[in-house]
């Protein structure tokens, strides 16, 4: 099947997933305690005024109708208006997306560049010092809360060694050097778990592949061991590695929310926390849609990339 066909098919398959994300985001608001309308109307509003706002927002309609209305506006790119700031939610999200995007990208790049080689070397020299070191690092990395890791880096690299700023964010317009300088600690913080995850999966899938028959064939062909591992085995282990990168995005986003708080980055994670504390539901809904959409999009890319790594998948 043509590449375009596969693309179209896979893209269509994410529509129901996004619809469910939208449904969850919608239901969250409807079933939350506390009346958003009362909040909107202020403390001393009379019942008539509340009813008027209710009607204006369409909240007097039955639930499915409300959902369809909401979905319709969503499709037009209208995420609603913040209760707190009265700004459109989309404007707010656009304003805050920069730092989140920046720290996520540096983390993904760093983690792949570090995690995959560690996993490969650990599998190649199974039981060696690197394998054991990587294993224990990942075991510990999984056990320590993200924010604690963040404070560890702050304590060590900022306060003791003075290498990096304790907190804060510099946008790209302030120069790439300053930008990366501020991103280093957040990236190191977020990466630990992600590197551990990627290294672990790389190691396991490589070891699994090394038991396959074609690896035996490669050895029977008299190929040097490094060719057997890096050429024959690693290419076959690519699909699980790429897929864990995609699945890990959910983990990454969770970590971003916490990390932004630790380092005081003005990103979407901070916006989420602030909105929850202020009960600003339209903003929370918008953020859920954005993060959910990002997750779906990245995993769509991952899905499509499978056919690049494994010719059998494109044949389906």
């Amino acid at each position, binding site marked *: 099947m043509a590449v375009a066909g596969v693309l179209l098919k896979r893209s269509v398959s994410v529509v129901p997933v996004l619809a*469910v994300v939208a449904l969850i985001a919608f239901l969250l608001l409807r079933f939350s305690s506390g009346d958003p309308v009362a909040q909107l109307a202020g403390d001393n509003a009379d019942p008539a005024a509340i009813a008027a706002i209710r009607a204006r927002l369409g909240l007097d309609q039955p639930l499915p109708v409300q959902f369809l209305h909401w979905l319709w506006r969503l499709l037009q790119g209208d995420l609603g208006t913040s209760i707190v700031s009265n700004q459109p939610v989309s404007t707010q999200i656009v304003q805050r997306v920069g730092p989140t995007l920046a720290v996520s990208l540096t983390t993904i790049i760093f983690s792949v560049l570090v995690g995959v080689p560690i996993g490969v070397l650990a599998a190649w020299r199974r039981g060696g010092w690197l394998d054991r070191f990587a294993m224990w690092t990942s075991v510990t990395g999984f056990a*320590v*809360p993200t924010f604690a890791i963040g404070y560890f880096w702050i304590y060590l690299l900022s306060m003791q060694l003075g290498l990096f700023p304790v907190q804060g964010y510099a946008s790209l317009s302030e120069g790439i050097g300053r930008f990366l300088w501020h991103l280093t600690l957040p990236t190191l913080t977020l990466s630990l778990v992600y590197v551990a995850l990627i290294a672990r999966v790389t190691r396991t899938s490589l070891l699994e592949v090394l038991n396959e028959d074609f690896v035996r064939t490669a050895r029977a062909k008299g190929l040097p061991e490094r060719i057997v591992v890096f050429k024959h085995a690693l290419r076959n282990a690519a699909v699980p590695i790429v897929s864990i990168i995609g699945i890990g995005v*959910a983990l990454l986003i969770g970590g971003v929310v916490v990390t932004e708080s630790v380092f005081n980055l003005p990103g979407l994670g901070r916006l989420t*926390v602030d909105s*929850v504390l202020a*009960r600003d539901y339209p903003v929370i809904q918008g953020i859920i849609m954005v993060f959910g959409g990002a997750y779906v999009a990245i995993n769509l890319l991952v899905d499509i990339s499978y056919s690049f790594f494994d010719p059998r998948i494109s044949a389906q």
Partner: protein
Amino acid sequence: MTATTVIAPASSSVGARTFVRKLLRNRTILFGLGVLALLALVAIFASVMWTVDPSALKPRLRLRPPSAVNWLGTDNLGRDIWSRLIYGSRVSLIVGAVVAVIAVIAGSALGLIAGMVRWIDNILMRMMDGMMAIPAILLAIALIGGLGANLVTICVAIAIPEIPRVARMVRSVVLTVREEAYVEAAVSMGTRLPVLVIRHIVPNILAPLIVQATYIASSAILIEASLSFLGIGMPDEFPSWGNMMADARLYFQIRPGLMLFPGICIALTVLGINRLGDGLRDMLDPRLARSVGGVK
């Protein structure tokens, strides 16, 4: 040989005894069990562990260094750190256990249904896909934002995002086991669906489920700590390790211990549970290593 069968304890009492013996010979599992047992003891006997009221404010004794009275010093409100650490184990253990139980029960029910009834499968799995698209911590934050924060809502909010992961795993095991010749043989012998599920399918799910439950418990403890840290978790006066670390944010330059002690407690707890899970996984089925590799 048996490519997909999960070899696990036989249902006879002899099998159960050798299983326990195998458990106790595995150092990884022993370490995990040891940590958990210690924590359980501490949590149960918190009141007699040389503790004082963990929420008692002594404004005049703020940020004291360790002393004979306050073994680990006091925090910014003059509360005894030792006592708060000891009582904090209760929150973590309860959250870990309750979340694991909710997620496992709800998830395996959904997974069994999806695996056995084809027309529900499609709808259910689309729902699960949608839920999994929302990062667990974000969904938990949003849920708590809606429900308000107390022990029950926090447990529910952390458990809900885990349900689809359990459901997916259970469903995939069910689909694999259904293809086994011994299940087909039972079908052709006229075994009814409920018996089929209980006798031939559930035992295969048990092993991976126990393993996954440990990972869910440890991840729940981490998420609870993160929520407290963000100020969305347990009410502030409550002694939880996450709250302690959140309180320590402003003072950790003067007293790193405020951050360090609860951090070590969390890490040790999670480490213990994870090691237990790793050990069980390796013992019950090495092939599981990949399918439930998602640890937080």
